């Protein structure tokens, strides 16, 4: 990302959104709203003095809300560009007119509470949409008790917890007592392959669950990871071998079942996972210390609005529709607007990278005046 930011031909407009696109392929005019971040991008050095003096404490979205951030913040340490932003809905000064600490301590004089949204018109030859995905919120699936039971996490929360730079410095902590779990269960297809939520398969969860289960074993010798799967979809080069290796070398147990319910012992906070062992046709219960819900990946928030702005179609699942899924997966119905990555359909990182390169090539054809 830093390399991209430093490239002389690339301008990154962060904290901005496209609000209009007029014109035709090869000659579009895109109207961009640059949202006020209340910090001057040219002056801010990203030193973080302001954040250390900010009194507010807000759940940190980047760390799965497991720790707190400030109102003036960098979303995460490697964020590009390295410029602070003020969360205007939470900032004490912007909401109540009190505080003003960040402006006082900023040596660069970058904080500007009077900043307003600005608008920019850019002439572009082609547009590539790569808005990615958001995570499905499993709170509505009451049978799993997410949000109610302390030891039921989403895969993203688990991922941040086991990351060495995450909120617990890489330690898995269960409630109460913060010990690491002995039995760890991953539950696949939460909100995906489910006609009540999303009918499609998210395509990446089987593999990330296996990876996360292996990580747990690397951190703790005595942990027993279980993966409850509907169909273990290890489609890709070396993926099948990887799932086999996880079982052989890391002792990860695969159980073919979609659990029906999780119950919690109120005193010990231990979980009972009820499932139909579909191989042996028996209803069983697994006592686990932590359950990780591998939630569905859904199109990024605002995709419907963006589809109207850009005048491109979305399909029944909310992904941007390409004119032909087989022969033209990168082309939207509007000539000159291309699609890449998860916004177009579920896919993993290598496929997204390939689509990114492909979309760049298609855009270069238009920009070079050799369209079709």
């Amino acid at each position, binding site marked *: 990302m830093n390399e991209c930011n430093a490239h002389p031909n690339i301008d990154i407009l962060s904290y901005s959104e496209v609000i209009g696109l007029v014109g035709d392929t090869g000659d579009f005019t895109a109207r961009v709203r640059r949202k006020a971040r209340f910090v001057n991008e040219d002056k801010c050095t990203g030193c973080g003095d302001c954040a250390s003096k900010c009194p507010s404490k807000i759940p940190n979205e980047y760390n799965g809300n497991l720790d707190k951030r400030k109102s003036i913040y960098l979303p995460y340490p490697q964020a590009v560009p390295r410029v602070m932003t003020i969360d205007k809905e939470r900032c004490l000064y912007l909401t109540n007119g009190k505080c003003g600490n960040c402006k006082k301590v900023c040596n660069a004089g970058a904080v500007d509470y009077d900043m307003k949204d600005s608008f920019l018109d850019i002439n572009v030859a082609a547009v590539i949409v790569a808005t990615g995905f958001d995570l499905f919120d499993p709170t509505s699936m009451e049978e799993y008790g997410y949000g109610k039971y302390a030891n039921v996490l989403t895969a993203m929360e688990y991922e941040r917890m086991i990351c060495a730079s995450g909120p617990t410095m890489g330690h898995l902590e269960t409630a109460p007592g913060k010990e690491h779990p002995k039995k760890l269960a991953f539950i696949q297809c939460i909100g995906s392959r489910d*006609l009540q939520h999303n009918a499609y398969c998210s395509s990446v969860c089987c593999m990330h669950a296996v990876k996360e289960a292996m990580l747990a074993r690397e951190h703790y010798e005595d942990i027993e990871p279980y993966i409850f799967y509907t169909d273990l979809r290890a489609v890709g080069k070396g993926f099948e071998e990887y799932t086999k290796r996880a079982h052989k070398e890391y002792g990860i147990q695969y159980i073919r079942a979609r659990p*029906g*319910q999780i119950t919690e012992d109120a005193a010990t906070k231990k979980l009972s996972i*009820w*499932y*139909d062992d*579909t191989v042996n046709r028996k*209803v069983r219960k697994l006592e686990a210390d932590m359950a990780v819900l591998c939630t569905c990946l859904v199109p990024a928030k605002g995709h419907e609005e963006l589809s109207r702005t850009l005048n491109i179609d979305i399909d029944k699942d909310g992904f941007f529709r390409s004119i032909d899924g087989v022969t033209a997966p990168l082309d939207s119905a509007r000539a000159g607007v291309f699609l890449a990555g998860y916004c177009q359909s579920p896919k993993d990182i290598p496929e997204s990278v390939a689509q990114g390169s492909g979309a760049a090539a298609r855009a270069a054809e238009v920009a070079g005046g050799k369209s079709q």
Partner: protein
Amino acid sequence: MKQIIRDTKAYYCVECGKCSGYCPVARVNPDFLPRVIVEKSISGFNKDVEEDKELLSRQMIVPCVSLPQK
């Protein structure tokens, strides 16, 4: 039976077992598995299901709230 399958869209069943895992009856009665009932119905073993004494003897079947492919 075919009509029931069509109405309930039971042919979407992925046999994941979520129904049985949620079912309170299945936890106490090892012979009662909703998933197996659906599995039998959609794979043509209608008779087994229609004559299932366990199923017929049940005065009150808890309305299923969790069948994911409903």
